[in-house]
Structure formats: C-alpha cells, structure tokens
C-alpha cells in the first residue's frame, strides 16, 4: 500500500471506533491499536522501499515520491497533492511510532474510551496528512484537523488546570494559524493566483520584497507550535495539563508539525525571505535552547521539567534549520525525529508510569521509586541519557550535527547552544536523583515502600519500542541520515 494510506487507514479506524458500542472498551482499544499498527506497518514497509533496501516499484522523481496529485478545487488552484521525501519520511515514521506507543500507554483510560481513541486517531490522521501534503491549502486543512481534537483530549482527559492549559494551547495555535492563513493567501496571490502547490510556488520564486514580509508570517505562525521562544509559553502548561498520551503527541508530533511547517511551507517557498530572517531565527532558537534548559533546572514539578526541556530541544531544531547548511539542516530533521521519541518516552514515564500510580508529580514528594518501579527508573535513565545527548542515542548524532552546522554559520551560536548540554545533564540527573533515589537515600531504608501497582505489559512493550528506536537511530543513523541529506542537498541547491 502507498504511504498515503496511513492517512486513510487511520481515519477509517477513527470512524470504525465511532460505530462501536460505548461499553466495548477492550474492543475499542484493540481496534485503535490495530489501526496504529497498520499505519506504522505501511510507513515502515514504504520506508524500506524508499531507501532502496528492497526493489521499489516506484522511482524517485526529483527526490520525491509523488503519491497523489489531483485537482481538488480547480477554481482556486488547490490540488490534492501528497508526496514523501527525505524531509518528511522520518516524521511519518515518527508519527506511526508515537501513535502505537501512545495507544499502549493509554490502555488504562476508563473514562469515555470511545471518544478518546476516536479523537486520538483523528489527530494522528491529521498529522500524517500535514507531513505528506505538498499543497499549502491542503496542508492547512490537515493542520487544523489536528488541532481541534487536541483541545478536547486535554480538556476532557487532562489533569492539572486542564481547561486553562487546553485553552491556552488552542488560542496560541489559532493565532499561529491565522498568521499562517494570511501568509498562505499572500503567497497564493503573489505567486500569480494560480496554485497553492508548494513545489510549483518554489519553482517560480515570488518577488524578494514580498517574500521578506510574507515569510515571517508563515514561519512564526508555525514556529508557535514548535515552541519557539518567546511564543513557547503554551508548551509547558499544555504538556502538564494533558493526559499522558496527549503529552506524548504534543511533544512527540505536534511540536514537529510546527517545525515541519516552518521548513516546508515557509522555508521552501520563500528562500529570499528566509535568507533575510535567517539570523533572527538562529538566535531565537539559541535563546529557546538556553532559556528552556535554565527554566527546566528550577522546576519542582516532574512534568514541567520535561515540558521545558522540550522547548530547549526544539530550539536545536530551529537553530539547525536556520543554519542553511547540510550538517545543520540534516541535524535539525534528525533532531525532530529524535526529540519526538525522547519526549514521548519521558512523558510516558512521568505521566503514565509515575503519576498514574503516585498521583503526585512534585519532586519533593517523590523519591525512592527505583526500588518500587525499577522499570520506570531504567526507562527514564535511558530516555534521560538520550535527552542529554549521550553518544549511542539518536539525540547525540542530531545535536552534534546541529552544532557543527551552527558553528559554520557563527561560532557564537554553537558555543551558546553547546552550553545547554551541561544544563540538560544537570536537570536530568537532578530529576533521576530526586524521583528515583532521593528520599530512599536520606531515610536509608525507612522510607515506606508504597505498594504501587506493577508496570503493565502494554507499558513495557511501548517503552521498549521507543527505546529501541532511540538506540537503532543512535547506532545506525545512516538509515535516516542518508535520505535526509539527499533532500537537504536538493533544498540547498534551490537556495538563491
């Protein structure tokens, strides 16, 4: 099946769940899981074919696999155009992995199961669509489709100040969307009013002066969702309010929607605008990196730490994209994948493994969990190591490349960004110490051992999947990096 079937299968799954009886909770869960697995399977199968590891029955055309390209609203020049290339395929795969593991980590949801999984799959389908859309209008439609379920998932199944968090997230997203929408219309008319097609628009560049003003509209509109400083404030509160699976989706894929939108809709279409704003983006990225890390260091709430660390790590993506060289941009795309996995893993530990059992996320109240929940401890240590950029994990390859790329742009950027690595190590170690050891050390054996429910099989399966992804990409980055670089090269060739 072609890669775009991931979208249809996932929508079908969501629709099927809507038809199931409300009380058949287990059936609903299994249907959702099956849908996720089929989506991931299609993604993987095509990923292998795309890389030419097996005979592909479909040749690459200008570095793309065009999946569908039919006129949709001909009078407006809107095409239903889907394609994959080295820039979005890693993210399609990421979405599949996060979908399957997110469902597994939501296995214990008992309240309104049907709606939950229906929303969940709708969101996933929308995200698949955004990643593959090659038409600005289509991309925007999918993008909105992904945002709406987000609100409901947080507002209904969330925890701490969930209405506030959900509303803040949606307001920020809508303001971002509005900017994007204006930008898209401007692109359409400035491009001759014929087409919304990204590749077409990129082929016939718009006048430089217009680009300079339209580019930031679209870029910032998307960057809001990527957690770019100073528009990041929705991220920590949103993450904290969201239920586990939703935090995983938020950090794992929704933030990537933002950065991917920046790349595909803004950078590709407006190369001159990009050249004009390049330094601004890079420095905002660096500020985000340092600010996120510093704020994470002083948090008292376990989940806020991970929330702010996401802001910091997404800063690497923006910085890498802004470098406009091969190393930096490839690193940025790899970082999108890597951070998606790491953040999902860490949020799963915090939200599902720890919070669902202890009902607290305060670092001072937790402690000694290494004894009671050893699996959670091991998982967090591995996720934390990947987050720190330990070699052997995907984050290392990504961040090193971003740093090399940043250095080529300006050494100061690289130096400033590299400082954050030490801070990251500090807050991760601090969290490990306080949550998993801490109390146990001070009271030395007298800490009461809570009879916490043991880690369940779905949690173990999902966590192992995520950890395997981290290690595989960490040890064999070529399986992703080669295809990314091929398309980054094409992109850079198109730059003025």
């Amino acid at each position, binding site marked *: 099946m072609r890669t775009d079937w991931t979208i249809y299968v996932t929508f079908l799954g969501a629709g099927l769940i809507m038809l199931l009886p409300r009380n058949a909770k287990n059936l609903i869960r299994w249907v959702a899981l099956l849908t996720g697995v089929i989506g991931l399977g299609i993604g993987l199968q095509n990923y292998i074919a795309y890389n030419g590891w097996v005979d592909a029955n479909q040749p690459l055309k200008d570095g793309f696999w065009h999946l569908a390209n039919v006129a949709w609203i001909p009078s407006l020049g809107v095409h239903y155009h889907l394609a994959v290339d080295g820039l979005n395929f890693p993210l399609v795969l990421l979405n599949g992995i996060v979908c399957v593991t997110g469902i597994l980590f939501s296995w214990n949801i008992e309240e309104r199961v049907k709606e939950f999984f229906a929303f969940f799959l709708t969101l996933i389908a929308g995200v698949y669509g955004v990643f593959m859309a090659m038409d600005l209008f289509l991309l925007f439609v999918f993008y909105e489709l992904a945002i709406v379920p987000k609100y409901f998932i947080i507002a209904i199944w969330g925890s701490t100040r969930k209405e506030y968090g959900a509303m803040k997230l949606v307001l920020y997203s809508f303001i971002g969307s509005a900017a994007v929408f204006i930008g898209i219309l401007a692109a359409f008319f400035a491009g001759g009013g014929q087409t919304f097609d990204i590749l077409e628009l990129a082929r016939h560049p718009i006048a430089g002066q217009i680009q300079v003003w339209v580019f930031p509209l679209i870029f910032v509109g998307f960057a809001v969702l990527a957690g770019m400083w100073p528009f990041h404030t929705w991220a920590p509160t949103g993450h904290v309010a969201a239920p586990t699976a939703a935090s995983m989706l938020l950090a794992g894929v929704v933030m990537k929607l933002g950065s991917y939108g920046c790349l595909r809709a803004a950078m590709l279409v407006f190369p001159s605008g990009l050249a004009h704003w390049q330094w601004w983006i890079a420095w905002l990225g660096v500020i985000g990196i340092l600010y996120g890390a510093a704020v994470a260091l002083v948090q008292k709430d376990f989940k806020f730490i991970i929330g702010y660390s996401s802001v910091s790590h997404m800063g690497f993506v923006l910085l890498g994209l802004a470098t406009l060289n091969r190393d930096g941009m490839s690193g940025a795309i790899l970082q999108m994948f890597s951070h998606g996995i790491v953040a999902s893993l860490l949020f799963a530990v915090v939200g599902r493994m720890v919070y669902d059992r202890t009902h607290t996320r305060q670092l001072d109240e937790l402690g000694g969990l290494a004894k009671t929940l050893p699996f959670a401890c091991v998982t967090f240590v591995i996720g934390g190591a990947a987050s720190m950029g330990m070699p052997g994990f995907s984050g290392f390859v990504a961040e090193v490349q971003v*740093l090399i790329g940043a250095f080529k742009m300006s050494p100061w950027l690289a130096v400033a960004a590299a400082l954050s690595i030490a801070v990251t190590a500090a807050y991760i170690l601090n969290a490990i110490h306080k949550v998993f050891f801490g109390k146990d050390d001070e009271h030395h054996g007298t800490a009461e051992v809570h009879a916490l429910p043991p880690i369940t099989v779905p949690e173990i399966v999902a966590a192992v999947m995520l950890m395997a992804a981290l290690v595989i990409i960490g040890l064999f980055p070529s399986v992703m990096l080669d295809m990314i670089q091929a398309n980054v090269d094409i992109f850079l060739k198109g730059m003025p």
Partner: protein
Amino acid sequence: MKPGLPYLSLITFLPLAGSLVVLLLPKTQERAMKVAALGASVASLLLTFCAWTRFVPSAGMMFVERHSWITALHVDYYVGVDGLSIAMVFLTALVTPLAMLAHWKLKDNVKLFFFLFLLLQTGMFGVFTALNFFHWFIYWELGLIPMFFLIKIWGHENRTYASFKFFIYTLAGSIGMLVAFGFLWMATGTFDFVELRSLAANGDLAKKIAVFVGDVNGRFGWHWNVTTFTSVLFWATLVGFAIKVPIWPFHTWLPDAHTQAPTGGSMVLAAILLKMGVYGFLRVVLPIFPSQVAAHVDILLLLALASIVLGAFAALAQTDFKRLVAYSSVNHMGYAMLGIFATAATAGPEMLNEKAAALNGAVLQMFNHGISSAALFFMVGVIYDRTHTRALAEYGGLRKIMPIYAGVLGITMFSSLGLPGLNGFVGEFLIFKGAFPVVTTVTVVATIGLVVTAVFLLQMMQKVCFGPLNEKWQWLPDMTACELFIGAVLMLFMFLIGIYPAPLLDAANDAVLALVRLF
C-alpha cells in the same frame, strides 16, 4: 591481512549479549543471572586469550575490522589492537570477571548489578579497541553511566555525592574532548585515530587546521591564531583524559568515587577505568598532538611529578583504608604519566632507547597497576564485608586471626610498593631508568614519591595486620575459598610479570618504538 574470526567484535559484544540474557532472566533466578554474567565475561576472557596467542607485535594493527557505518559523517566501524592496547584488553577481560566474583554473594538488586557490570565491560573493551572517535566516544560514555549507578546504588554512606562528582567531572572532560574532535573533524573530515595520526606525522594536520582557521577568520572577520587554536584543541583533549587518569589537579573526584564504590566497582574503576585515561594519551594525545605535547612538556612533567609526590603524601595522611588505596592510585598513575611525558621531553633520535624504556615502563605500569590496585581494593572489600568499617585505627593485629588474609595483603602491598621479583618493580624500574637521563631533575624529585609510597604502604600493613588485636574482631573468619581464588589469580600475575615480564614487553615494544619515533 586475511580475514579471520572477528575477535574484537566478539570480545566486545559477548558481555553485551550476556547483559541481555541477565535482563531477560526471571527475577527469582538470581543464581542463573550470576552464572550467565560470569559465563559471558569468562567467554570474553578465553577469546582474548586466543587473540593474544595469535597476536604478532610487529604486524601493527591486528584483528582489524572495518565497515562503512555512517556515510554522512564518513564514519567507519573500525576496530583493531596493537601493542598499546592488547594488554589493556587482556586486563579488562581478566579483572572484570574477578570483580563480579567478588560480589557473588550479592543479594540486593542482583539483576541490575550484573546487567550494569556487563554493560560496563562492553564499554571498556570498546574503548581499548575502537579506532574511530565516533564509536570510541560511545564506549567511553558507556563506561561512565554504569559506573555512576554502581556507585549510586550499591555504594557506601556518601554514595550520592561521590557518584555525582564522578559523573560531572568525567562528563565535563568528555564535553571538552567532544568539542575538540568536532573541530578536528571540521578541519580534516575524519574521526579516524589512525588517519589523524598519520596526518599529524606528515604535517598535513597542521596545514588543515591552518586552512580551517583561515577559513573561519575569513568568513567571520576574526583573528584566530592557528597556534593558539591548536593549543586549545590540545588542552581540551588532554584535560578530558587527565581527569580520567587522573593527573593532579584533576584528581579530586577519585578518592570519593573509589571510597564510596562497592568493592567490584572500585576494582574495575582503579584497574581499568583509569587506564582508559592513560590509554587516551597513548592513542590520541601523543600521536595526534606530538608537537603540542613537546611544546608543553615541562608543565606536563610537573603535573605528573605533582601526582606522584602529592598523591603519595596524601595517601600517607589518610585514616581510611580505602581512601589510602585510592590516593595510592593517583601516585601510581603519576609514574605512568612520567614515563609517557618523558618520551616527549627531547626531540630527535638521541636517547631513543631511554625514551622507549620509559614508555615501555609506562605501558607495563598500566597493566601492573591494574593487577595490584584491583587486588588492594579487593582486600579492602574483604575486610570491610566483615567489619563494616574502613577506619585504619579500628584494625590491628589481624595477622593473628586471619593469617591468610595477612599473607595475601602483604604480597599485594609489596607488589604495589615495587618490590623486585613482583610486577610493580619492573614497570617502575623501566620508567625511572628511561626517564633519568632524559629528565634528570624531575626523576630525582620523583624518587621522593617512591620513598613515601613505601612508607604509607608499610604503615598501612602495620596498622591492619600487626600490633595488638582489636578485641572486637576476635571472631573474624579468614578468607573464604572464593575470596582466596580471586586473590590467587591476581597474585599469580604479580609473580609472573615480576619474574618474566618479557611477553608483555615484547607485545608492546614495536608500537612503543613507533610512538617514540614521532618525537
């Protein structure tokens, strides 16, 4: 070279496979976990032994495996051993199973302990065999995390502080190293140790760095100085290794980490992890930055001297058995560093033999210290398991109730002290013999260290085994068969090398000469 068994990959990944087996065994099967862990480790030892018998010192890099790995960064999976690393691989293979055996009776979190230990062993093997910075660095960090947890979870009263200190020091060093190699990569496009070495030898490295610096200056309008820039790279790399060795004044993590670690952790830490730092000097610092080493050799010699003398005096002042042994490591690694830096003290072919002797001595000292420090820490562990105190003042007269213990401790102590006939003597003798004509003053001052070493070790022996017996310890049992076995294996090597060091020296000599000729 004709393709054979991929010895090094097998040796490296057997413990990793063992760790997965340990992980998958059911929680209650503690004995099976221990057997699996030991089995994997012993299998590595046997393979290492086979590799050693096939090792040809004059053949350069042996057992080379090279596969294209990350094409985007031009990184190959590239492993091999030569005379500088073969002994270290063997030491790793030998000490790790012994350290695991020292925890045979462990009851607390057995699975995690042996899992981490095997992971650690893979990391250590990898550091000594990898020839490409990229995966070498993965192994380097892999040595760090399991050790952090070994200290953190199974350590003594002050374990949290010690483990964090260890982690942060090593991480700080690693980051500097990473940055330095990032720049080297940008300048040369390779992470390959062997290639960087030949680039440095024929002067291309300096040219490439100059081109790189010129490029940076041109692009950003800066005025970086090529010499300063190279020096910064050199120091960043050097400090990363110096922390691990540790060389004074970067040693302060060591007494805490060693004292707080569980017995097996201290054994491996002292015997192997410190050697990773020294090995870094042989594999990276000297070959890639020969002219920088030569330019700064006076400072480096002074630091080595400070490690020797101050380490010895610090050990003399200790009241804690384990801390004393820890400081003795600073002192002993100082000798190895003296031998290494003496190599760079003069240029050209004059005194080639002397410099080669000093460097040979340093390589031998690495192995020797591995054996004797592992034995010393093990002996501290044996007595700590029984008394739960490490204060020297609490002991005394143990010879009366634990004669075997006193005997083994005595031999170990003499090995560490450098008594002729035991291993320690050969290495230190070569270092002093080689270094004396090259750097006479430093060597003479370093002999103060030798004297103080003898004093603190003898004093330790006296406080533990002689004098009046503390009545509290009337009931102490002597060493068990298992403990004696561990001691006996280590003692066997003390005698073997003390009497017949030729196999080790022959293995290293060609590689050492090649290294000396760089200067």
